[in-house]
């Protein structure tokens, strides 16, 4: 696996992940603060129920925050002669190989946040549901080009089922 040269994703994808981290954390924190709100309304809520949920949320959020940068840096893909390799994960590392000949269709999506940074996400599908490769955080132009190249390679090397 070491000999494969991986292309990383766009560094601005870090910002996308950071903003969605902020939004998620805010939502979870709001939910975790419900007992505190109830206590302020003079309801009888045990103290541990007030403290524990927000504390847990904050700890997990910080841990995720710590991992975001490394997670983004761990993302990468490599177009090899016969197949596409996609790498992901920091704690749970994963690599997926999709031979061009097995490629069924390539999907390009971009959410509102990704659009702001002109990024997109490619999903490469095969006939097997579990053999799916996802490359997030590609610059829009790179994504379009990659999709075209993958589609062309898929057509050229197609193997029937």
């Amino acid at each position, binding site marked *: 696996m070491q000999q494969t040269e991986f292309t990383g994703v766009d560094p601005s994808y870090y910002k996308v992940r950071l903003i969605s981290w902020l939004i998620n954390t805010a939502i979870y924190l709001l939910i975790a603060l419900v007992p505190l709100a109830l206590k302020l309304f003079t309801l009888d809520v045990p103290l541990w129920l007030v403290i524990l949920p927000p504390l847990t949320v904050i700890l997990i959020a910080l841990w995720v925050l710590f991992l975001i940068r490394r997670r983004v840096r761990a993302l990468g893909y490599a177009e090899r002669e016969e*197949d596409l390799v996609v790498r992901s994960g920091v704690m*749970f*590392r994963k*690599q997926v*190989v*999709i031979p061009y000949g*097995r490629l069924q269709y390539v999907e390009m999506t971009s959410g509102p946040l990704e659009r702001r940074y002109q990024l997109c996400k490619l999903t490469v599908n095969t006939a097997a549901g579990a*053999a799916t490769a996802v490359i997030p955080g590609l610059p829009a132009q790179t994504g379009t080009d990659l999709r075209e190249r993958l589609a062309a390679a898929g057509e050229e090397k197609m193997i*029937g*089922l």
Partner: protein
Amino acid sequence: MTENWQRVHPASPFVHGWLAIVGLIWVYWTSTDELSWSERFAGPRLGWTAAIGVGALLVILVFYALSWYFTRYRLTDTHVYVNAGMLFRSQKQARIERVQAIDIAQPLLARLLGLAELRFDVADGSSSVMRLAFLKKERAHQLRGEILTLAQIARTGTAQPPAEVLAQEPEQDTLPEEEPARHPEAVAGASGQLIVSKVPAGRLLGSLMLRVPTILGVLFALFFGIMVVLGNAGALAGVIPALLGFGGWFYKELNNSWNFTASNTDTGLRISRGLTDTRQQSIPSGRVQAIKISAPMLWRALGWYRIEVNALGLGDESDSETLVMPVGNFESVCQVMGILLPDLGVPAQREVLYTAVTTGTQHGFTSSSQRAKAFSPGAWKHQGFLETDSVLITRYGWLARVASFIPYRRIQGVSWHQGPLERRRALAGVRVHSAGGSILGYAHQLDHDRAGELFRTQARRAAER
């Protein structure tokens, strides 16, 4: 030979729609709940009840008659046509030479009336199955034979140049050893088929009794039974959902496996099964993507196995595994595997198969690393894989032991996995994915370098044509 349009059996709409009648009666019954039996069918109400009943019956009969009138089929030398529907017409046709197989299914009511449904497995890329329901059972078998014979003639007529065949059958493999797959079941239903495995009722029941859900169900029932006997009548409330859930599972398994017979045909396996709903199904070997032989915990001592396959285009079950042997000993496994995967890519097929379904590192099996002992104390010796010339064999599982077989040319993608704990012990796993179901090649907790090597060779194999 060009036949005229023919209609299906007149009872067909009833078999399709008997639930509607039952439903109507149920709605009537529950909405007149407050009435007693005599009030319903006596006095001034009787007239109304009878009038409404007759009216509803007439409407239903008219609908049924129309539905029957508009459902027609026709067989020509080149096509099978099935038309149905009066408001929303559906006209389906299939080119004879693309008919891969024809299943015969008999739902409970149809079976009681001696009727059968034909399900066409057509290689034209469409996802919906063409159905023809219902015909008299003999007629169904006769029609199936006719169509498959025509298909055989159409295909072997050698009128088409090979290139065209290739273009027309994208789902079919073009490798030479796949050749038989294009000639399914020469004369279907012909006698002289070799029965490879027939599951006796006793063994089937025994095997189901030894499955974990059954044992859990029985334990639950015992537990609640004791509670009730001890005077806790409320525990009865727990019994019913448990019984329903467990009974549902048991019935489904029983119905799927009852009277299970697998026979050998020119192209693959032919399966017939069913307790209340009977079904006949063909599994051309060319459609099989992956094979899983599993031994649930309590079967291991008895040497019993169960075989499932990932297969493409088997009608409505295309997304889940297909059962090809509910229970059988190693001898049956060998017979079934001999049809599904005649070439394991090794000289000592039988011995390798035996090592695959048991445990051991003979014949080149690589097992999980010693360092995996802490993670899988009961399974690390069993976990392992073997790369033959044509197939990847993987073994995994602790209590229930599984061996999965994926031919290299069926590999859709390969993935490599490593969790934080595995990394510390320099372990990694490789998974190999195939289409048509959830069976996968799963080589777990291997030595890091060995996993990397397996990952690379599998990726290379997958890209080969």
